[in-house]
């Protein structure tokens, strides 16, 4: 493993894309970054611009109004990138989606729009589960490099 591949594993930067959730997963995501779990130990940082990110962390069920924004943010993240869907809504739509959207305003889970690499189920998932999801994302990131 070269130094560049190592650097990719050592410094994954997260961009938190909230696409229409209830804020439960977002609070748990922030808990993962706060003192108790502190993912900065492993070099993981929350970045303010999607152009700086390696890992896109999405939470919530996508409303129809949010479709262009989700697509655009995904396209703004430079390659190689990984998408981690956090929470039941982001994994399968939860109670908002059953074969078809349960509500006229809802599109469904973000997987219908952008390719999701890792799913973290739970309503809301614990910070431990989110950290595990991010670690799976990092491993996928390393694989993506190896394929090139």
């Amino acid at each position, binding site marked *: 493993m070269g*130094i*560049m591949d*190592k*650097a*990719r*594993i*050592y*410094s994954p*930067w997260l961009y938190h894309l909230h696409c229409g959730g209830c804020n439960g997963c977002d609070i748990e995501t922030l808990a993962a970054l*706060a*003192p108790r779990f*502190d993912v*900065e*130990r*492993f*070099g993981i940082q929350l*970045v*303010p*611009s999607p*152009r*700086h990110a*390696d890992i896109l962390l999405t939470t919530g069920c996508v409303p129809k109004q949010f479709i262009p924004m989700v697509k655009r943010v995904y396209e*703004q993240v*430079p*390659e*190689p990138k990984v998408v981690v869907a956090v929470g039941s809504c982001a994994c399968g739509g939860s109670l908002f989606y059953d074969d078809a959207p349960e509500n006229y305003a809802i599109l469904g889970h973000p997987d219908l729009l952008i390719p999701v690499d890792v799913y973290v189920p739970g309503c809301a998932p614990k910070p431990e589960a989110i950290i595990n999801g991010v670690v799976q994302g990092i491993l996928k990131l390393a694989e993506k*490099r190896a394929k090139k």
Partner: protein
Amino acid sequence: MVDLIYTVVSLIVIVPLALFLGVVYSFLLRKLSARFQWRVGPMLRMYGDLKPLLGTSRLLQPLYDILKLYGKETVVPDVSRRRLFVYSPYLSLIFAVAAIFFIPFPGMPLLSGVPYSLIIASYLLIASILFTILGPIASGSPWAAIGARREVELFLVSELGFVLSIFAIAIARQSLVIWELSKGAQSVYLALLTVTAGALMFAAVLGKLHIKPFDMPEAEAEIVAGPYTEYSGKLLGTYYLSKAFLLYGLVALFISLFLPPLATDVLWLPLYLIAAFVLVFLLTAVQVLNPRYRIRNAINWYLKVVIPLGLLSFIIALAIWLVV
């Protein structure tokens, strides 16, 4: 001849050394601010069972960040002025590296002995920051434009403090050569000037490095990532690289001007490093203890506190020059 060869060799050696020290200072900034916030921060020694996957130490975490950015795709927006957008990070890096050639390191005078090296170094440091303003303006993003405008406003006042502080020292010691300033003997009067002008320079360094009360140019979550919003991949990595050099350069300049003779002989190296770590610790303490100022408050603070302090330093410097 021997001197020339030594200078050339030291100019080659200082670049990786400055990068290493800049990276270590940035690591300290991150680690100490994490400790202040009751977090662990980047780990100095990784947990035993995670070592195979995550490496043994994260001392070079900022360097890993930069290397990773060099391995990523670089996105150049269509609406940007392409040439200025792409070249600005590299020019910023070149000026930052050029500036460190004029600042002495223990055992290596480098080019700090050339006439007017104080003015050359301060111009090069200013030029490096100038290109962190020009590139974002060329990016065509409103967030970058707001960030760059804030940076210009902050730059005007913090630069004034910087210039007042270095010229107060230069007047008192009757020299514009950093090497002479860095080896001069101390006296009681100069110690008084060191306190006032040193505080002034410290305030200017806060503004130049965007340390917490003055981080409004990059205000995360407020104006996305400020000037760096549109930058990605190699270009962002280059900006981070120039920031590491700038951090090293400003710390080295502070020590060589205000703590003589620490930056002269190689025997002072341990004390030099301790002084640098103390300075970084103070910068971190200011960063974690303060919220972000609005730009108006920052300018007011500089005008009310820093400029009078600068004038006081000037009066002391003139008194030393005329009387002592």
